[in-house]
């Protein structure tokens, strides 16, 4: 079964001086799906999005949105899409309603359509009560909701969301996930970026893992996890033995049932054929290199394992998240 393609990129590349912000991106987004770009800071997610919404010209390669080339037919593309930028693009002095009224004119909506849609959207994002106060009185989450309402105003066929839940509290994140699912149910194609693994896992039908400007893997979360196969054994090693982690990794790598070993600050992740068969040998190796194990855990591959397997590092350090 072949599905309708909403977006297609072919060997997309954007360089800043000698730095390739995105390189050789080729992917397709199907109509009606939620497509995710997952990657750490600086991976090239926003750059990719900016090319797709016609704000950046690719250095080379091509991107086609709903049949129109983003470089040649930029104006046509802009009429069909909505965009929610990563930074809160809010004018502090305007009220929520004034933001929407301004954008209604910029999207050239007829007056009656604007009059109908604006209250509808304010209701959808739960901002009715504050709609006539200046945006400088809004909380971060409220600004984000206003951002999303702005992105939805043109009734787009494709909606681009750049890190829609960055820095939001848990409730607001869940709300936004809900909106995204509602939009999808209405048939809107959604392209979003994120560096939250759980978000990608929960929300995206398919995703591309981006790192260093390149696509490292692509598929549905389930496919990506199944593609890895086997199990993950995770060892947490006592701080006093941290110096011996490297030796243990070396000892493990030569074992036949071990496929890959990745070091973390507090231990090792070991990808194995089957945890039952591998565990005795792993424990024996730990004993032999006299690493004291604080915790041994094994599980089916998760999205973070997929990420590590394809990029060679974890998406973020294990230090507590710092809010911007």
């Amino acid at each position, binding site marked *: 079964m072949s599905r309708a393609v909403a977006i297609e990129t072919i060997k997309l590349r954007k360089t800043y001086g000698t730095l390739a912000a995105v390189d050789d991106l080729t992917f397709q987004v199907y109509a009606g799906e939620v497509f995710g770009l997952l990657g750490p800071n600086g991976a090239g997610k926003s750059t990719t999005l*900016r090319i797709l*919404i016609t*704000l950046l010209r690719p250095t080379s390669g091509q991107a086609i949105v709903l049949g129109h080339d983003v470089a040649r037919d930029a104006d046509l593309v802009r009429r069909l899409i909505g965009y929610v*930028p990563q930074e809160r693009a809010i*004018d502090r*002095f305007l009220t929520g309603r004034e933001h929407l*009224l301004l954008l209604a*004119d*910029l999207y*050239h909506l007829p007056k009656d359509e604007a009059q109908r849609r604006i209250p509808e959207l304010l209701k959808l994002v739960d901002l009715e009560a504050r709609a006539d106060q200046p945006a400088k009185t809004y909380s971060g989450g409220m600004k984000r909701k206003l951002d999303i309402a702005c992105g939805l105003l043109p009734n787009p066929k494709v909606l681009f969301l750049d890190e829609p839940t960055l820095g939001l509290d848990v409730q607001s994140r869940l709300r936004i996930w809900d909106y995204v699912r509602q939009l999808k149910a209405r048939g809107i194609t959604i392209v979003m970026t994120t560096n939250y693994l759980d978000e990608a896992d929960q929300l995206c039908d398919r995703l591309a893992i981006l790192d260093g400007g390149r696509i490292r893997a692509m598929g549905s979360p389930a496919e990506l996890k199944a593609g890895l196969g086997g199990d993950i054994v995770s060892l947490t090693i006592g701080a006093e033995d941290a110096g011996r982690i490297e030796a243990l990794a070396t000892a493990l790598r030569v074992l036949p049932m071990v496929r890959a070993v990745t070091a973390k600050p507090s231990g090792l992740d070991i990808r194995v054929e089957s945890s039952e068969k591998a565990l005795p040998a792993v424990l024996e190796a730990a004993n032999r290199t006299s690493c004291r194990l604080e915790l041994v855990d094994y599980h089916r591959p998760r999205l973070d394992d997929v990420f590590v397997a394809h990029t060679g590092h974890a998406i973020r350090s294990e230090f507590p998240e710092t809010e911007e």
Partner: protein
Amino acid sequence: MNEYLQEIRALTMRWVRRLSREKFSMLFTLVQPMLFWLIFFGNLFQRAADPQVTQAPNYISFLAAGVVVMTVLNNGLAGGVDLLFDKENGFLERLMSTPINRTSVVLSRFLFVTTITCLQVLVILGVAWFFGVEAVTGLPGIAVILLISMLFGVGLTAISMALAFSVKSHGDFFSVLGFLSLPMIFLSSALVPLQAMPAWMSMLAKFNPMTWAIDAVRSLILSGWAEALPKVGMVVMIMLVFDAICLYGSARAFRRAMG
């Protein structure tokens, strides 16, 4: 065409709305610091300034033209600031992701800045009138003063926007502006006539478009049409060249920034 007007009206109204929200800045915009120049320095230097040198009945009537053009200078050079903030907080990107004509945002800014500048010029001429300075060329003369203000203002606003689109940080923006505006004022006939300057200074001042604007405005206020017309013709030509250069530079900066 209809769509173009709709965009420009909406974007211009946004600037108006912002101004009306920023009460403090509105006060400073309408009761411009330049007014104080006129009132205080105009009266303060009354005794110090020699009418033989200024060729004017009193210093305030000499200073009025300088204050008018300094207002245009300040407004014009500050005209890009709001776009700079829009660029920095991503609002500009949001505007540019909509299907608007690429020139609308910039054009709305020109419209707004020019309108505010003209209003201020009228306020300044009103205050000068209150102190007894009456333009000898009457209302038509004032219309020509507004025309010169607009022509000069457009080029200055273009410089400011070009700067806003090219700078890396807004610290840079304000230091370049500070660097530009003081010499523009002192190397012009705003405060002292060219004849009273050291030779090297009056040489440099002649290359300053501001000098030409001030001399034309001053003769419209003090001397009458016969003396003013050739100066007006000259300054219009100089301003057209000045604007063309500034607009070209700013269009390039804009295209570079917006891809």
